[in-house]
């Protein structure tokens, strides 16, 4: 266990982060993904997954029109089907935050902004902090930051720790999600260390990926991060959220993530307040499954709006 000081932030002794056996993690995932989720429990899971989505567009080509359309979709996923929740948040670049905020106003949907030189994070700290403050001033409820993977892999943990702590300060009231970009960290031991470091530095959420690097979110990585969250909770009493992002595009896989969540952290985390799925295409596949559960037949993707 990592010794923690709950009154002020300090870098944990990362040499005491538990080591991770990749084969064991994969076996655990294989077992969890064999859970058979049918009927009522499937419908419940699908709706829960919808409500946890951070509907995302992070393209250089993003425009006002694109964001406006996506924000409408976020609140009206599929009006033909009653009882469908809205997504948790929309996730955009900082310059589009103000527009997104206006568009989702009154729906209860949050606006998340990627900041700190997303996706590479290869910028000086003062630029990252300005990026963060700008997004917050524009109205972002949540900031998705990237860590400096180069510094992390070079063993400069203090640098990464201070960076996260300062971004957290710059966030003010906005929630901070820390993107580890696990696809660049190389091994699960590093994922665990980066998770511990980020939580101790003040992350409200830890997040797998930018979506710009392959592999993005995977179930083994998510399990390791959830176990880090569990240990942090036991040590400090603080509940940190989790956001797998990138590559989760089918309802089936989304349900597998929920199974892993349920059996690792339990009921308290089964809420958009503590679990998000970053995705751009997932919602329509879930809607297709929900429609099938209601009507008994699958409809083609042409019946689901692509915004």
């Amino acid at each position, binding site marked *: 266990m990592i010794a923690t000081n709950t009154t002020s932030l300090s870098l944990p002794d990362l040499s005491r982060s*538990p080591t991770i*056996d990749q084969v064991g993690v994969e076996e655990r995932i294989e077992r969890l993904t064999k859970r058979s989720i049918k009927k009522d429990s499937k419908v419940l899971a699908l709706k829960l997954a919808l409500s946890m989505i951070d509907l995302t567009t992070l393209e250089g080509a993003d425009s006002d029109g694109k964001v406006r359309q996506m924000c409408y979709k976020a609140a009206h996923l599929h009006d033909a089907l009653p009882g469908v929740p809205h997504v948790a948040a929309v996730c955009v670049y900082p310059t589009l935050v103000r527009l997104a905020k206006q568009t989702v106003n009154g729906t209860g949907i949050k606006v998340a902004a990627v900041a700190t030189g997303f996706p590479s994070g290869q910028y000086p700290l003062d630029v990252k902090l300005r990026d963060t403050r700008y997004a917050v001033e524009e109205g972002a409820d949540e900031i998705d930051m990237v860590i400096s993977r180069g510094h992390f892999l070079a063993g400069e943990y203090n640098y990464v720790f201070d960076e996260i702590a300062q971004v957290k300060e710059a966030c003010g009231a906005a929630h901070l999600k820390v993107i580890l970009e696990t696809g660049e960290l190389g091994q699960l031991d590093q994922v665990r260390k980066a998770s511990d470091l980020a939580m101790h530095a003040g992350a409200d959420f830890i997040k797998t990926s930018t979506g710009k690097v392959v592999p993005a979110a995977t179930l083994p990585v998510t399990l390791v991060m959830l176990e880090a969250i569990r240990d942090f909770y036991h040590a400090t009493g603080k509940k940190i959220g989790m956001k797998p992002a990138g590559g989760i595009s089918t309802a089936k896989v989304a349900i597998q993530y929920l199974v892993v969540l349920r059996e690792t952290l*339990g009921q308290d985390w089964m809420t958009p307040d503590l679990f998000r799925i970053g995705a751009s295409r997932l919602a329509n596949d879930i809607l297709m499954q929900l429609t099938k559960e209601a009507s008994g037949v699958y409809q083609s993707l042409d019946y689901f709006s692509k915004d």
Partner: protein
Amino acid sequence: MSDQKATTGGNGVKLNFSTDWKYAPAPETAKVQIKPRYELFIDGKFSAPAKGGYFDTINPATEKKLAEVASATGEDVDRAVKAARRAYDKTWSKMPGKERGKYIYRIARLLQERAREFSIIESMDGGKSIRESRDVDIPLAAAHFFYYAGWADKLEYAFPGKRPTPLGVAGQIIPWNFPLLMAAWKIAPALATGNTVVLKPAETTPLTALKLAELIQDADLPPGVVNIITGAGETGAALVNHPGVDKIAFTGSTDVGKIIQKSLAPSRKKFTLELGGKAANIIFEDAPIDQAVEGIINGIFFNQGHVCCAGSRLFIQESVADLVVRKLKDRMATLIVGDPLDKNTDIGAINSRVQLDKINEYLDIGQREGAEMWCASCDVPTSGFFCRPTLFLNCSQSHRIVQEEIFGPVVAIQTFRTVAEAIEKANNTPYGLSGGVWTDKGSKIFKVTSKLRAGVIWANTYNKFDPTSPFGGYKESGMGREGGLHGLQPYLNLN
């Protein structure tokens, strides 16, 4: 004992696993053929027992009767052994290995084709979860037939410089914990080496062996090469003592193994015994802790703990003991105990009322001995034989729950301080079948595993089986090896 489905950490925080999101029942629904009555499989045909006795086999999850099966007496055993002898003399021992191999491959393929049916019947008759019978028992049984089929025409290469010849008729007695898998472990190497077989499945779980008899008929195996006779202990004793048997292969309890060894002492029959165990699963402080916890779960709760190599003695280094126990409780809180045919069930039914009573007796003994008992608070069906996954804290080597094989989902936990202490305590048992070591340090794995006196030792995993790997015990856990190249030897004369 906790009555809530939640676990508490050191500073009072709790994880709550009694979630709103329940998994809906997901029962395996395929229809299977179970006849109301099964006769004895002798000389390629099903025939009634000489004295006409039958007994019921039940589903331990519902306590309902599945079928009745014949009770073989001495006369039936004699008939089966003679059929096996005829088949040995006339066909099987004279057949080229390549031809024998074809038959065994055929059995393997048929078993794969009917895997679903066999899985369901295995779960119905024995109580194990469909997840395990589908993913472990049946595929592994087929794999054993495939593996030994390959050896049938290569025996000279297995033992260079020797001339391997078969023994004759093998009498084989198997337990109720892995009914079909144990049948495969026994039959496959015997057939590959040119022996014929009289197999007696366990009294509580005869159905998949009898389905295997039907499959062997379909495979057109020459009559008498495999004979399957059902019955209780007396049937087994008649088989062991029959003068026409050349070799006995037994898997089961140490008590019965001792009786068999005594009765075989004056004879020239060869034998292998695979008996009980009380394996040490050792968690060092430098282990990958979360995966080690999963290994503890696989070690003791696999097949309801009805596993001779189960990791029933857990040793945790004192510096991480509280952490591991807390994580173990968290994990146990998510185990699903119930209908073996539900695909989400982790732990199925205890095999029989007798076994459930025995486990419950040990739970009493453990508490009387002063160990601290903790059970997962999962829901358990009200009918059928079920037992909550249980751990005992503060155990010592002097406790009976540490010394004796419980054969149920019960783990006895002790702590240790040094590597030497772990090795000493792990070896301080009359058994020596298996063990587990969890550490990230490669040199420690080699040091510890070379000093543990047990036949099978897993490092950073547990309860992994493969037909190419030999399996067997030291001391009271038996003698001889099954599986792999080693598994051929007990069925051969090597000159």
